[in-house]
């Protein structure tokens, strides 16, 4: 009983864990819950040739590098997926206390919408 009381007191004195970064609210960004990165809304820049260029910044507030896999999926005006090697998954490491950018370009002028998917790299060391 005394031991339990001591443990309860020690637990009460323990510093609280830092809150996990909030999941992105932009529906165009799909981030797995275990990625633990912060991001905003993607920047969309239409080019003169009709192709959209996109950019999304990922921020890592933790003290550990975060290896992730990301891909950009493209859709036409009807919401149908646009198959392209531009949507192939790519590996990236967001450095500790740093930022990294996910960039992409539309495979065709008719690929007008997109979704950025970010998940933890399943083959990274220490997984």
């Amino acid at each position, binding site marked *: 009983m005394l031991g339990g009381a001591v443990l309860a007191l020690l637990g009460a004195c323990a510093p609280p864990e830092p809150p996990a970064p909030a999941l992105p609210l932009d529906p165009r960004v799909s981030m797995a819950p275990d990625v633990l990165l912060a991001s905003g809304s993607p920047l969309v820049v239409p080019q*003169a*040739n009709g*192709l959209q260029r996109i950019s999304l910044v990922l921020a890592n507030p933790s003290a550990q590098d975060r290896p992730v896999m990301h891909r950009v999926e493209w859709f036409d005006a009807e919401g149908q997926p646009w198959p392209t090697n531009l949507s*192939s998954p*790519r590996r990236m490491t967001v450095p500790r206390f740093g930022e990294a950018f996910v960039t992409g370009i539309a*495979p*065709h002028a008719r690929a007008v919408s997109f979704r950025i998917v970010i998940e933890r790299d399943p083959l990274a060391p220490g997984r």
Partner: protein
Amino acid sequence: MPLPAFSRPGSLATAALLAVLGLSACAENIATTRIDPHADRSEMGMGLDARDFEEAAGAAVQSMLSSGRLDKPSGGRYVMAISRMTNDTMQRIDTDQLVKKIRVDLLNSGKVVTTTAVGLDGAEDPMAMRARELRGSREFSQANVAGRGRMVAPDLSLSGKILQRNVRLDGGAQRVDYYFQLTITEIASGLAFWENEIPISKRGSNRSVSW
């Protein structure tokens, strides 16, 4: 003097057999399964696999389209021929694993179309020239035989090289760096229209092979 029990030939053979049976019983039984290329979680080797070619091709096409160099000033599409693609790695690679992916994406972008009638070692598809041998043949309707002067010469040429460099690291590890070097040349001027190098690096055990 009789031999000790452990040195008798019969007992040694029995012990060896039991050891082999025991080890085989512990061996992992790996069943054959299909891999979904869109969700490939399989282990990675030190050599190049399909995922690496996809990543390299995607990065190359993204760079090509982002550069704006493939936007033809007069509108329409550029015609591209495939030139020398060198494999400078220790692996047996068909460079078409990279080139075909690039061609497909460029075609689907509406910016570039590839000619199969002109190639470094002859036409990729000789049928375009072969079909022209039907001119004048009375067996074939000449209405849909390809006429003279209809083939389109290429404006651009795609060439490149895949390099490999191995480096031994401390602690029994090794690093392999692959470089996908690509160039698009404007045939009329002979100038490099677009260039890029896509690196893919891997780190693994010294016991893994990259050939």
